């Protein structure tokens, strides 16, 4: 499987108190464990089961992903720009892999 390369959209700057939209997408097969391959064998479950975001080490959003999440999971949500700092995005894979990315935001 190709190594997931997350794509994240966060504004670089924001005014204090602004509500900002964050959009994320990570490429992943998200095998739900119910589909069959061409030989009639069940494709075992392999999904990203958790996605969470911290803003200066405070968790601001979490998604407990399900087999019912479409492949290449896309999530868009909002957060309030409180202070200059770092947003950290973490995806946890069923196979134990952890994909982490971070974005800096300057709050004026």
């Amino acid at each position: 499987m190709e190594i997931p390369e997350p794509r994240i959209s966060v504004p670089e700057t924001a005014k204090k108190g602004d509500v900002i939209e964050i959009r994320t997408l990570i490429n992943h097969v998200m095998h739900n464990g119910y589909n069959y391959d061409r030989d009639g064998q069940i494709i075992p479950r392999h999904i990203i089961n958790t996605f969470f975001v911290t803003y200066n080490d405070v968790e601001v959003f979490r998604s407990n992903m399900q087999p019912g999440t479409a492949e290449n999971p896309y999530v868009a949500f909002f957060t309030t720009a409180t202070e200059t700092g770092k947003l950290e995005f973490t995806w946890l894979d069923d196979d134990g892999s952890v994909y982490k990315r971070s974005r800096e935001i300057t709050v004026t």
Partner: protein
Amino acid sequence: MQAENRFRTPNRRTFLVGAGMGVVGMITAAPQQALADGPMAFPRRVVDILDQNVGPGDYHFGDLMMELPIIAESGFSVPVTLRVATKMTEDDHVKRILVFAPENPEATVADYIMGVRAGKAEVSSRIRMAKTQTVYAVALMADGRRWGTSVPLSVTFGACVEEVDAFHAAEFLKRQRVRGNE
């Protein structure tokens, strides 16, 4: 492309079908009237999951809105947006939003946890649908209130099919698109 807009008020449960480009089902609400409407009814599977994960309680039509297409041509990826009418203040904010597709092999399809830091109670994602069904969503508020909503969704090709079928489905959709472009 001819598309439809759909609006439904939960207190009257009426359908208004209009014309427009965005194929979006929306639910709007008047909370007080919705409360007078009585608690929502969920399918057995959803009730069981809610009892187990959240604890028993009543859900009302009201501040929770779910946007789904009227028809999903592929159940593999269905865009969904959930929105709660709240200012996200310390006293009045959303803690958790859950989405259920009772006809899927696993009924829970989305589970978001958020808090007062969100600023705006809105999440968008893409989910899988096994077949045509009514999709349910609930929102749990910090003060204990519980909102629910439901949107019927038609699915042309379900997500839980053999790869061979999926291959044919993809080919079929490709041909459809080509025809549409002519």
